């Protein structure tokens, strides 16, 4: 049986892991390589690294970091942040990333999705969607959640699937950093509207939140950051818990 994936996310800034609340208030959370290795040992199913500074000066630092990650860990990992061209993707995949994640650049230029998918295959392309519930609607936001767009979330998800995305990483900005649980309604709407895998993100605070998102939506993965970084919920304990609740997880 296919297992539900538990995915720690590491936000990267100048080579360090950081964590903010509701996309602001950045705190240092450790060395990415050390954290990554610890998560692999604990049984994380995949890892996501998001370069939240993503400036041109930082690209070389990021590529070097990706090379080090690839040589140290033996589970799949995704790298996102500041990807604007097919060449950016090529550099990251050549450095050893298994998948890349695009967000604002896909909204600005949807054909980038098709260009990446046809060049490298859909399996390596995650489209990240930051969404916020406002005025009775789930809308898509870009630029780290600062800029609203006209796109409604379910329609955009359907469009990126049609354009060739292999997977969707759906983050609810209303829930992110609150530890009040995942946004079950929009996660369910998106995951039932499309046929590619959806990773739920934003709001994980307790083990029960993970059971909820896997029982009440079709998400096949759940992503979290701070609860893992600060050791609030150790991954083995979370997986053992999910196993007792009859959620299929990989036990190591």
């Amino acid at each position, binding site marked *: 049986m*296919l297992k539900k994936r538990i995915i720690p996310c590491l936000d990267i800034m100048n080579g360090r892991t950081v964590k903010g609340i509701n996309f602001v208030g950045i705190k240092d959370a450790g060395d990415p390589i050390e954290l990554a290795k610890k998560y692999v040992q604990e049984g994380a199913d995949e890892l996501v690294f998001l370069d939240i500074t993503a400036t041109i000066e930082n690209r070389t630092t990021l590529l070097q970091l990706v090379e080090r990650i690839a040589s140290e860990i033996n589970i799949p990992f995704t790298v996102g942040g500041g990807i604007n061209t097919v060449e950016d993707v090529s550099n990251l995949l050549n450095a050893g990333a298994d998948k890349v994640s695009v967000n604002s650049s896909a909204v600005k230029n949807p054909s980038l999705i098709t260009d990446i998918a046809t060049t490298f295959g859909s399996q390596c392309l995650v489209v990240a969607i930051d969404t916020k519930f406002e005025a009775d609607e789930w809308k898509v936001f870009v630029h780290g959640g600062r800029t609203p767009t006209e796109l409604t979330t379910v329609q955009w998800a359907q469009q990126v699937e049609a354009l060739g995305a292999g997977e969707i990483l759906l983050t609810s900005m209303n829930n992110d950093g609150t530890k009040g649980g995942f946004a079950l309604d929009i996660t369910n709407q998106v995951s039932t509207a499309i046929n590619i895998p959806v990773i739920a993100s934003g709001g994980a605070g307790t083990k029960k939140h993970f059971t909820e998102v896997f029982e009440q939506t079709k998400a096949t993965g759940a992503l979290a950051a701070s609860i893992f970084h600060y050791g609030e919920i150790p991954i083995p304990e979370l997986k053992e818990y999910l196993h007792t609740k009859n959620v299929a997880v990989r036990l190591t």
Partner: protein
Amino acid sequence: MIAIIKYNAGNVRSVQNALTKLGYESVITDNRETILSADKVIFPGVGEASSAMNYLKEKGLDKTILDIKKPMLGICLGLQLMCNYSEEGDTDCLGIFKASVKKFPPNDTVPHMGWNNFSSTSGVLCQGITDTQDVYYVHSYYAEVTENTTAICNYIVPFSASMRKNNFYATQFHPEKSAGIGTRILQNFLEL
């Protein structure tokens, strides 16, 4: 020396990283002599079947692969290209395994992406692995179960998780991305 076949498919690097960690020297190459003189060959692959087959033919690698006498391990698209035919891009493949590659019906999430187990029917590759242990898959097409199948995974339909014919071995999953279990499977192959 292990030869990793170089062609226009991603993720060749992670295979090499895994071999380095296990203490094996490897070279990424499309040179016929280097491939045929290697102790073992790995045929990795992530990508699309028809463009991959075209590339192999352009470089003469299709003939080289069939001439390999040492153990070869195909991974993911590698396994699919070793079959007779793939529905992906309506592609005639290498014809090592008597099997067709088909697209998963859309009855569940496709691609089949993530960790799943398999039941081993025979074979040395998956020796020591039990059916409660998971390996990492990511694919939208699958090879049907045939006489060459050595392990079966169930997702929407039963399909070949691993295959073997003579010196040709293959896995649909990615051993290089399957943590400790994958390392064990790679080791089984490298110790053949």
